[in-house]
């Protein structure tokens, strides 16, 4: 090899405490170094030109630059050597600024250390080899998992940007939690009026295919080329024929089917369309309550259906789609408040969740928009709201703030007054968290204009008294105990990670945090990326979020997917693991430890198991290399030999008669 070494003065940044000329002299004596020099600013235009000229003049096939941190200028110098015709991996850097000149005062020691670092770089470079990035084409299609407002936004933005979109929704209709809301804060505009048109756009957009009542079963492949298997659950209705006319739902005699859309307040029919604005507006049968499917008797829906779309024999169906990017927008679930014994564990029908209250407020809800309490249908006069039910409470393992409960509680207090002018709302709160445009003003309005009484303290107990509930809590500002007689108690239940999140995370190789929320690539700078290339996050699956933030993230995730797939071809980093099949004994330990699923087992011609790296999926961490006892899988650019060369450069083996070379 013919190696050139370039020692940078970085003005006086390095030269001030390192004798650069001496380092040049020492470096010139290192193995295979044919050229060594120093320059004032190696990264500058003339500095880079100096490298290029030297490569040509001295016929160099490897370059070491000793200057600043490679985290700073490695890409710069790699481009420079590439301009001179070398492979960019035939380049090494020695960090003699951040790690030497800036932290050590003793010039002799610094000089010595700089020379050592250059020797290390030279020894490693001697074992480098040219690496070439692979290019591959991508599928211009995006999978959006979850049809809540974040997923809807991501899907529409991707589709408008020209990509095909596949949306998978677990429930019968898209719309998510937002579709269940009556109004939204802080504008008090009608939730379904804002969301409805976007849902219709999903149904009508020619680039979007929607799979409702479906779940992602498995994902294989890698960025740009994922293969996704979707399970379409049997609905017992042929959706290609169903017109959503609703005749079946009117005639269905089984009217005791649980109604998840209305948060289990009241019941619905076994065959149903969850709500009038549902997208897709198709009927589906709940097999658990359908008499025909349970007992074989009935069959009325099949008789009344004008298009003959009822199919009691329908089975789950698996569909495979190829996509280039995946947006995860699986949203959240509500905390199960029954974990708090002090709220009655479900013994009192008039203790309900905030989302149930939304359904009571909603004109399309089970009470037609009249607030009637579940126990006796009476209109409540005193409504008590309890905040932080499953938020900011270590005792139930929910130490985090759910973020939007303060706001929707204020909204519900306002709406309560609108619905029942002679009502009185009480809100037990811990702190009011209203950081957002118009948010704090909104909570003030709830108190000042709508007369909601805010009590700062936790509720210790709810107990029945007559036909009322007595809510006992602390008023920490007054330093006293308070008891409020309530006709209805609304619990501001906090946010939990969606139930299937952990399992989906395993499928997608996206890590959930300890609470089940997906972990983003970087908390500040890569909020919608994940550590799996090509998989993006939108909305509350990453952490509690309100509607505007979820929509913003939906657009952000779409922008990332559009950016990724706007390139004709993607390039993979060649510094990835590589298997020497001769050495591989097929024990699959590397496969088990790879965090990215980047290694798969293949069978060779002899029928023996061998590991194979999917170069485009491998992120280059090197966990596998350490896992493999026979060193059969090696991380390129950081091979055992390269690192050992550095170790041996720093600690030359003593008194061994034979050197390592």
């Amino acid at each position, binding site marked *: 090899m013919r190696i050139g070494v370039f020692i940078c003065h970085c003005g006086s940044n390095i030269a001030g405490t390192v004798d650069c000329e001496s380092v040049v002299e020492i470096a010139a004596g290192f193995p295979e170094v044919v050229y060594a020099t120093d320059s004032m600013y190696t990264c500058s235009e003339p500095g880079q030109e100096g490298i290029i000229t030297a490569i040509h003049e001295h016929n160099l096939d490897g370059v070491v630059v000793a200057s600043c*941190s*490679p*985290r*700073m200028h490695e890409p710069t110098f790699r481009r420079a050597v590439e301009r001179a015709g070398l492979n960019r991996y035939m380049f090494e850097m020695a*960090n003699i*600024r*951040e*790690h*030497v000149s*800036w*932290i*050590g*005062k*003793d010039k002799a*020691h*610094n000089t*010595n*250390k700089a020379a*050592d*670092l250059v020797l*290390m770089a030279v020894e490693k470079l001697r074992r480098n080899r040219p690496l070439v990035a692979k290019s591959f084409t991508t599928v211009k299609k995006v999978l959006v998992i979850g049809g809540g407002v974040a997923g809807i936004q991501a899907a529409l933005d991707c589709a408008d940007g020209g990509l095909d979109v596949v949306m998978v929704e677990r429930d019968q209709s898209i719309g998510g939690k937002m579709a269940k809301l009556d109004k939204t804060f802080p504008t008090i505009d009608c939730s379904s009026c804002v969301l409805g048109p976007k849902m219709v756009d999903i149904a009508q957009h020619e680039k979007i295919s929607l799979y409702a009542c479906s779940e992602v079963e498995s994902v294989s492949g890698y960025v740009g080329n994922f293969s996704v298997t979707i399970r379409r659950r049997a609905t017992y209705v042929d959706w290609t024929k169903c017109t959503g006319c609703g005749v079946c739902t009117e005639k269905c005699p089984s009217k005791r089917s649980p109604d998840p859309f209305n948060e289990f307040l009241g019941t619905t029919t076994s065959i149903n369309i969850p709500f009038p604005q549902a997208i897709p507006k198709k009927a589906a049968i709940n097999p658990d309550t359908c008499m025909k499917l349970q007992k074989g008797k009935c069959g009325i829906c099949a008789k009344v259906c004008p298009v003959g779309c009822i199919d009691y024999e329908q089975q789950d169906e698996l569909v495979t789609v190829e996509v280039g990017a995946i947006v995860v927008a699986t949203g959240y679930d509500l905390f199960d408040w029954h974990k708090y014994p002090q709220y009655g564990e479900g013994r009192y029908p008039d203790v309900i969740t905030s989302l149930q209250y939304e359904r009571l407020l909603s004109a399309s809800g089970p009470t037609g928009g009249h607030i009637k309490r579940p126990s006796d249908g009476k209109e409540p006069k005193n409504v008590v709201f309890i905040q932080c039910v499953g938020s900011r409470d270590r005792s139930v393992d929910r130490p985090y703030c759910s973020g939007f409960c303060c706001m929707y509680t204020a909204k519900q207090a306002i709406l309560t007054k609108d619905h029942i002018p002679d009502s009185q709302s009480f809100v037990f709160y811990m702190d009011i968290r209203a950081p957002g445009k118009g948010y704090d003003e909104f909570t003030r309005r709830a108190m000042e204009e709508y007369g909601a009484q805010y009590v700062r303290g936790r509720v210790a107990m709810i107990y029945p008294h007559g036909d009322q509930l007595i809510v006992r809590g602390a008023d920490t500002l007054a330093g006293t105990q308070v008891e409020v007689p309530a006709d209805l108690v609304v619990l501001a239940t906090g946010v939990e990670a969606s139930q299937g999140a952990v399992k989906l995370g395993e499928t997608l190789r996206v*890590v959930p945090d300890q609470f089940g929320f997906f*972990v983003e690539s970087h908390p500040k700078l890569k909020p919608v990326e994940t*550590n799996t290339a090509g998989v993006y996050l939108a909305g509350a699956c990453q952490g509690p979020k309100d509607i505007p933030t979820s929509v913003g993230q939906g657009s952000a995730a779409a922008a990332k997917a559009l950016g990724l797939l706007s390139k004709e071809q993607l390039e993979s980093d060649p*510094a990835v693991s590589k298997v020497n099949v001769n050495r591989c004994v097929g024990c699959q330990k590397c496969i088990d*430890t790879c*965090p*990215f699923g980047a290694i798969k087992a293949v069978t060779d011609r002899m029928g023996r198991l061998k590991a194979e790296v999917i170069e485009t999926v491998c*992120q*280059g*961490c*090197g*966990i596998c*290399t*350490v*896992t493999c006892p026979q060193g059969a899988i090696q*991380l390129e650019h*950081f091979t*055992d030999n390269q*690192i*050992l060369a*550095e*170790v*041996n450069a*720093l*600690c*030359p*083996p*003593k*008194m*061994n008669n034979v050197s390592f070379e």
Partner: protein
Amino acid sequence: MSAQDEQRELRIVGFLCNWCSYGGADTAGVARFIQPTDLRIIRVPCSGRIDPLFIVRALLNGADGVLVSGCHPRDCHYAEGNFYARRRLEMLKRFLPITGIDERRFEYTWVSASEGQRWQHVVTEFTRRIHELGPAPFFNPVSEEEWAKLALDGAARGASCACHG
């Protein structure tokens, strides 16, 4: 530590992951946090890339100390690398005593890219520790005389050893 000892450098090898600790060392440099100069850093992508045998090789080659640093648990750029590293490195650290190599010559810790000050502290403390321990003994005999003595002792000893009297 006498002034003279302070002058003489010992050989300390550092293995740092690129994303957190190498960045932390850069941060310390940018902030001009003065550190002892004994340490030389080998950059690896992830603490999960560090084979405990690199550390053994360095120690057997005569390194006076080896310091490993990676991302804090849960912060690994590769999600799980430092979790594997922690197990491997802990096992090495616990194993060293049986070899007679002072386990204090090896340490592993976590430093994030923002923790320049912590890096300075880690380097300073570890270097101080290694200077207190002094130069590591050589595993191989260091002179022709010792080689000869070893050969003679071996011959005299025959098959006897600590366990198999």
